[in-house]
């Protein structure tokens, strides 16, 4: 569903009633000290973290009661591409200062096809970095055509660029969400254009405010006969309710409607007919 999306964006609020255990809040934390990285795109990675009470206590015991006030919380990001990282051998690294109350961060790394690792820690005035946790390693997606040619399969460069174009490389980014977006946009454009009043099968309220009136008419034909009788309206059979009653609704445009209603008894001996003639003229 992409899609996936289904159902109408205009579909109104979700059904909020009931549903026994009502999706209570999730835990604020799990008592872990950790930092986790996720790749987002060729330039950005995402980090979330947690520092447990236990870790906080250990750190304050070791570095002093006010260490969390004194030192700056930071994430040290390491480029560990093609490196078996041991804490010292990163290709490069940089620090991101985070706010003490934050729990996650989007980090701009700006480099596709590289591997990153990060330490969550505290940067003390004298330049010492106290590491609280080390993350997993993530790789950013390639984001562009590879420079590496397979010797056996190589094509000349111009050809490849032409092929890229044929493949629609300039249009990348079209998505599964696009259909939903298109429909939403169309709805918006529909609503943005000013309106005339509705017509036809049902009234549509003018979207532009101001004093207004809409009126239309429909015709309801109803009646009753023996429950087992055969009833036709304008020659078409109509299903009777168990008690022998019926009710039909007609759109009623200007003009004249002629509605013959005929009932025939179950044994086909008796029959009755009523014809309703209705005229409408709207001024």
């Amino acid at each position, binding site marked *: 569903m*992409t*899609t*996936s*999306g*289904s*159902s*109408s964006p*205009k*579909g*109104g609020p*979700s*059904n909020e009633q009931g*549903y*026994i255990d009502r*999706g*209570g809040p999730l*835990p604020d934390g*799990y008592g872990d000290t950790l930092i986790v990285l*996720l*790749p987002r*795109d060729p330039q950005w990675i995402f980090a*979330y973290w947690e520092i447990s009470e236990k870790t906080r206590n250990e750190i304050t015991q070791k570095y002093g009661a006010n260490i969390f006030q004194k030192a700056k919380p930071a994430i040290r990001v390491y480029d560990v591409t093609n490196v078996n990282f041991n804490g010292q051998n990163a290709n490069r690294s940089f620090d991101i200062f985070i706010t003490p109350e934050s729990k996650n961060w989007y980090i701009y790394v700006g480099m596709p096809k590289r591997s990153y690792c990060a330490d969550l820690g505290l940067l003390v005035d004298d330049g010492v970095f106290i590491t609280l946790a080390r993350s997993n390693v993530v790789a*950013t*997606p390639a984001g*562009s*055509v*590879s420079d*590496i040619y*397979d010797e056996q*399969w190589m*094509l000349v460069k111009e050809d*490849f660029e032409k*092929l*890229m174009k044929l493949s629609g*490389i300039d*249009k*990348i980014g*079209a*998505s*599964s*969400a*696009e*259909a939903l977006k*298109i429909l939403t946009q*169309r*709805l918006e454009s*529909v*609503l943005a*254009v000013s*309106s*005339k009043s509705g017509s*036809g*099968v*049902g009234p*549509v309220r003018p*979207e532009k405010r101001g004093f207004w009136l809409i009126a239309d008419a*429909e015709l309801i034909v109803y009646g009753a006969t023996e429950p087992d009788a055969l009833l036709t309206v304008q020659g078409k059979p109509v299903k009777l309710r168990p008690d022998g009653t019926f009710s*039909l*609704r007609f*759109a009623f445009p200007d003009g004249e409607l002629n509605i013959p209603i005929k009932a025939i008894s179950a044994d086909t001996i008796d029959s009755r007919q009523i014809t309703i003639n209705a005229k409408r003229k709207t001024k």
Partner: protein
Amino acid sequence: MQKGYLCLVLHAHLPFVRHPEHEDFLEEDWLYEAISETYIPLINMMDNLIQDGIDFRITMSLTPPLCAMLSDPLLQDRYLRHIWKLIDLAEKENTRLQFQPAFAPTAQMYENHFKMARYIFEEKYDRNLLNAFKKFQDLGKLEIITCGATHGYLPLMLSQQAKRAQIRTAVQDYTARFGQAPRGIWLPECAYEIGDDQLLRDEKIRYFFMETHGLLFAEPRPKYGVYAPVFCPSGVAAFSRDIESSRQVWSATDGYPGDFRYREFYRDIGYDLDYDYIRPYLHNDGVRRNIGVKYYKITGKTTLGGKQPYNPADAKEAAASHAGNFMFNRQKQMEHLHGFLGKDPIIVAQYDAELFGHWWFEGPDFLNFLIRKIACDQDEIKMITASEYLKENPKNQVSVPAASSWGDKGYHECWLQGTNDWIYRHLHKAQSRMIELAQDNRNESNGLRIRALNQAARELLLAQSSDWAFIMAMGTMVAYAEKRTKDHINRFLKLYDDLKNNTIDESWLREIEYRDNIFPYIDYKVYL
């Protein structure tokens, strides 16, 4: 003379939405609408093609949650209740509109359509539409592929066991339903991370589909661009989407579904008609919503009030001419590519199945015309499945595809952004606890504990559906997506604690087994 192959892929998926605890549940409509508007029209089309002796090939992913819902007796009953109500309404409408020549044919169309849907669902396929799809597969016309167990977004899982559980559970589910192992897979959201192909290989899956740039950015460069698959180092083939054939159908500006003659999605009698009249066909809360009966065409750049009446015959003509245009464009494209590549290109056209019928009402007509034209009017394009292609072309270049998805901007941002990034710390924690549970209880023999372990696996899988993050990002029905995420995580966390403390609450467990009844035969050891 043959110039190339067309591989048509429809991804059919809905998240698992089933609420036996409620008599009437709004989000279950997603399934009922898709059944009436997409699955049944496609089934009807395929049946008619077969009856008329028209050869065709379609590939469809039927995701495990969709299969579970289509074969669920409760939802089958509820669909019947739903379609009978629509039939009742359509009959009334047909009477009401009989003197309005501009609307009468459309009213008649709905009555016929709903009655046909009821017949196909209840009588022809005995309430289970999987019977239809399986039949088409057994006839060699349709290739059904699988997907992640709950459409979990693999690149954001990090853990190999968690990814493996998604794939293995799906393969087991597919095998039980269709009597054979799946040959291919639609990666959820086409999201691929380097190395994921090895997990597919381990489950004996031979190919997968991905987004255009996943293949274009492969390393080394793919000689044929997206017009031939590559073999990943694991030996699994990666096919990728042709942008041109996608754009003609998807694009906001020049896509077919925007043609003025087609049906307007947003002008629905659920909003238009007298409240007392329409009230019995709305949900219990009485809020006006789309009902699925719409009498107007797109018309042009106008207000909803300014829409003109829909004309089914005109719309059908539009679908036929669009099918002709699509085929003509593929012929030109193949001719060009054929000369350029020196071999038959494969054009992979991938779409959400629900686009056809639900969003683009005439979409199934379009496909029907397209398939018939390809079969009867030309000999340049050959429809093919990925399996058949690989049989005919066993030698392919070896390359490593690039991380990518078919979401907005082409990577993971749609599922990892301010609206939904809070879910991952909980999902990851649940994953690692599930793996821990599987390891600590690998020799469990107590029946109640085994039930709790299996239910924990179900709750984790359900929480992982990429749909929840997607809905949060799209901004509609968000409350429901958040609630589902929290409910499944909380149920998982309780099961974890109960298993740890040996305090399993049997009646509570029975209740959630009854609600979240997907994968009845799951084995928690899939997380080992």
